[in-house]
């Protein structure tokens, strides 16, 4: 009957008389939603495994007695399903009545009112009176810091617990089972969770709400501005919700950030760190002229990678017209790394994506404290770990307590020995029988004993690794920022390319800053040089700054339109949530004769030769369809590159004896923009283990001064009992303009001077 050719994988079912197609393994609900058939649910959350706690999704299947939970029942080919009839309606109505037993009548003040699933479904099932009852009890509101939990409003759908475990991987929330007395409990109330707010965003009622937002605005008063997060290279989809600041102030203010929580997630920085706008910028003609003059005479433009593709494009045009050198410390290492990678892999871009990462069955993380560098990558690893039971091998010099629940094997290597680690990985993962002879010869020539001794990676560990990955497909290798500025970065890049090419691995090279990938592709970057310089969010003789600290103001990423290039190799749009009255980079460029009416006029002209598409900004889609497929902007095209590179001999590895300082922001801090946000906590301490303290002769609470790459840090030293080893962690997001001058290897051994207190 159906004209479709069905493969073994596909199946056809009939829902309410409509013929629907799906694939093996799809649940009835998934197929229904994909076909725009409505089945009411209360506990279903697309991004986690079916929870099956509400029974709202019941359907009848022909030939099966009783009601079936459509959210967890896999569809069987040929099934005939009814989603709506009298009996199902009664069943659902009764469930809604039960949910309403003793539910406080406080919609009038509840933050969720207007977007509350309980309100909606109570109306939908016409629950006008109550026929059930239970003895009410006192359930006080609990304050968990930035989130507050009201057990009286909780309907025990368990979404929060599942998202915390399955997506975030923090396992903070649990269920205290006890019939009507059941509640959600915070298992580590004293400790900080990663403060991501994911639990709060998926809560269908007003039980979990942001303490900061609480009672400040009704949902319907807020205007949603769809955009992308500006803080890390994941550029997650989000909406800024804005309204006038108050009765006496008509200026728009961002009240909160929401996301499409069914399909996407946010980390704490994205959700709470939205107050980084550059406010109060004014137009001053004289200043404008001096900025244009400065750009004209500049020999160097130094900039940070937290800019849009369009701005990068403008800078490239300035370079082409004026011959100015473009220096981006955040992206230069990455650009060279990508080039070296292409020279072996033959492709301009790495193969992995976040979606595939979350479906991988074996994951290796190399050279990144990934939980802090890019939480969204960590979330996807968590999903793979929970759903696919993925083997997760975490290779890093520092053990990360936050990764504990998902990592199946931790391989510690010495700081500085990343090249050796990559070579050992290549040797372990590539089957020499199936590769070209020169690669095989290269791998056979590696002095495993020596590499293993120098990097401190045991041969038994490698054996365990290769055994654990046997007989499974779907592997992803995640590589991060420790590698891009390593002295042997190019060699490492080639080794990773070889692993991707011959080891059946997908590779993700996590960009080190928000738009490092975009800048790498669009700008022709130069080595740093002396001479008169203009800094854009970076130090220079004349500074353009979106942080509000320079000679002339620039709009922050929530005050302008444009696109970003994400770790997913996706070009995603950002929109202006707040007004900006000052000059933009495009205005300055026009002053230089690089003309365009609007910044977004450049969107169409992003370089096609680098994989961009000639699509105008206003034509970029930005939505998720009913099945959760992402239609945001477009995916970059990976182009063929010449395979001219050869694997290099592993260089003698430098050794780091004694205390080492690792440059890494943590606690939802990424850049000076997150640092500017008052809603996020501060991260300004040098943290190390007791061992580091002893080794460096430091005491807890002592103030130290040290210099890394010309930047002087004065930090309070704190002993972190969750840490081990001889490496301390030093944040740099609070260093203003110099926080973007990170063109150096992340492990250093600065001289630590104790300061008088």
């Amino acid at each position: 009957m159906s004209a479709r050719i069905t493969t073994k994988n596909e199946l056809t079912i009939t829902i309410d008389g409509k013929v629907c197609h799906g694939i093996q393994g799809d649940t009835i609900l998934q197929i229904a939603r994909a076909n725009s058939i409505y089945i009411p649910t209360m506990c279903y959350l697309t991004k986690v495994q079916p929870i099956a706690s509400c029974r709202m999704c019941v359907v009848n299947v022909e030939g099966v007695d009783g009601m079936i939970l459509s959210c967890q029942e896999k569809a069987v080919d040929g099934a005939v399903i009814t989603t709506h009839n009298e009996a199902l309606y009664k069943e659902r109505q009764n469930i809604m009545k039960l949910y309403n037993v003793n539910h406080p009548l406080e919609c009038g003040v509840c933050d969720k009112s207007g977007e509350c699933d309980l309100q909606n479904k109570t109306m939908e099932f016409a629950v006008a009176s109550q026929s059930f009852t239970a003895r009410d009890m006192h359930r006080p509101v609990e304050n968990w810091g930035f989130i507050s939990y009201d057990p009286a409003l909780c309907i025990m759908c368990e979404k929060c617990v599942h998202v915390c475990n399955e997506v975030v991987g923090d396992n903070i929330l649990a269920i205290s089972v006890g019939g009507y007395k059941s509640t959600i409990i915070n298992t580590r109330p004293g400790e900080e969770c990663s403060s991501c707010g994911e639990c709060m965003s998926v809560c269908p009622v007003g039980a979990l709400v942001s303490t900061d937002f609480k009672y400040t605005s009704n949902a319907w008063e807020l205007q949603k501005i769809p955009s992308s997060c500006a803080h890390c290279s994941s550029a997650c989809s989000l909406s800024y919700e804005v309204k006038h600041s108050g009765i006496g102030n008509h200026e728009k203010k961002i009240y909160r950030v929401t996301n499409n929580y069914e399909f996407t997630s946010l980390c704490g920085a994205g959700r709470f760190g939205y107050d980084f706008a550059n406010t109060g910028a004014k137009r001053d003609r004289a200043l404008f002229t001096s900025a244009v003059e400065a750009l004209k005479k500049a020999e160097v433009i130094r900039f940070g990678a937290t800019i849009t593709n369009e701005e990068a494009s403008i800078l490239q045009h300035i370079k082409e017209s004026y011959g100015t050198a473009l220096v981006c410390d955040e992206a230069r290492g990455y650009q060279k790394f990508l080039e070296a990678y292409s020279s072996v892999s033959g492709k301009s871009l790495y193969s992995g994506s976040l979606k595939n990462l979350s479906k991988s069955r074996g994951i290796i993380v190399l050279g990144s404290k990934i939980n802090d560098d890019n939480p969204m990558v960590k979330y996807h690893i968590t999903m793979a770990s929970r759903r696919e039971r993925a083997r997760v091998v975490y290779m890093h010099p520092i053990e990360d307590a936050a990764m504990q629940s998902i990592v199946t094997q931790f391989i510690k290597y010495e700081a500085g020995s990343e090249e050796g680690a990559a070579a050992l990985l290549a040797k372990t993962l590539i089957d020499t029988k199936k590769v070209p002879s020169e690669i095989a010869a290269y791998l056979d020539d590696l002095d495993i004993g020596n590499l293993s001794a120098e990097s401190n990676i045991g041969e038994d560990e490698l054996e365990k690794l290769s055994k654990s990955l046997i007989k499974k497909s779907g592997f992803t290798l995640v590589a991060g920022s420790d590698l891009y500025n390593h002295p042997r970065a190019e060699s490492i890049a080639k080794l990773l390319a070889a692993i991707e090419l011959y080891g059946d691995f997908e590779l993700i090279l996590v960009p080190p800053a928000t738009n490092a990938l975009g800048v790498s592709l669009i700008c022709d970057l130069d080595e740093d040089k002396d001479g008169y310089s203009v800094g854009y969010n970076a130090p220079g003789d004349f500074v353009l700054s979106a942080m509000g600290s320079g000679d002339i103001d620039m709009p922050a990423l929530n005050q302008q339109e444009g696109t970003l290039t994400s770790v997913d190799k996706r070009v995603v749009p950002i929109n202006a949530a707040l007004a900006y009255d000052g000059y933009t980079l495009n205005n300055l460029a026009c002053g230089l004769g690089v003309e365009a009416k609007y910044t977004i006029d450049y969107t169409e002209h992003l370089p096609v030769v680098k994989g961009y598409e000639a699509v105008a900004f206003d034509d970029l889609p930005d939505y998720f369809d009913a099945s959760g497929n992402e239609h945001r902007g477009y995916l970059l095209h990976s182009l063929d590159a010449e395979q001219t590179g050869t694997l290099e001999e592993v260089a003698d590895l430098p050794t780091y004896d004694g205390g080492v300082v690792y440059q890494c922001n943590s606690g939802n801090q990424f850049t000076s923009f997150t640092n500017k946000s008052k809603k996020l906590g501060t991260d300004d301490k040098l943290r190390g283990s007791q061992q580091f303290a002893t080794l460096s002769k430091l005491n807890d609470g002592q103030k130290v001064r040290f210099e890394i790459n010309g930047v002087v840090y004065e930090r309070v030293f704190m002993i972190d009992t969750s840490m081990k080893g001889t490496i301390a962690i030093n944040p740099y997001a609070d260093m203003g303009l110099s926080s973007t001058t990170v063109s150096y290897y992340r492990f250093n051994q600065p001289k630590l001077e104790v300061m008088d207190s």
Partner: protein
Amino acid sequence: MSLEEFKNRNIGKQNYVKLDLEHTPQTPLGRFSRVVRRTLKGELFVGLYVTLREMINALFRGEMHTVKYPLEKLPISPRYRAIHDMLRLLESGHYRCIGCGLCEKICISNCIRMDTRYDENQRKEVSEYTINFGRCIFCGYCAEVCPELAIVHGGRYETASEQRASFSIFEDMLTPVDALKQQKEYDGFGAVSPNADENIKKTPLAY
């Protein structure tokens, strides 16, 4: 005038009196003789007498039929929609408004604006509330939608002002604490219906 009288609109059932008017004369002679009759009858003095009587009644017997506006005002119908009042709870004296924002949302001319916050007692507090009476069209939707009978129309109907915008803030509209005893329940638009009690369905209780 009581509410009952006001609501009595059964026009047509009252006892109307039909005036007994004489027919208009058809001939010139008839018309002439009517003029002579009326001229000599002295009806003019009847009229003057009535005027004089009423003047005396009004001035000396307290039977004045007009009021000295603006010194005096006539009571208005409870259904009249004048400048808003914000009522208080009679027992606690706390303002009734819970900050639900429904009035702000429903207001057809967008003239209500409010700020709320999370207060020290973990309650929603209305930190500021204004109505721009220059834009208000006195439609009464806000009073109707208010779930707490907090915002109501009061008796102040003089809305002339020197400027087009004329804002009232929360405190202006709120019943003064010392006048709580005089606070009257509002009977007009949005008030509970007289048979509200009959319509309530009770939740069954297991204890």
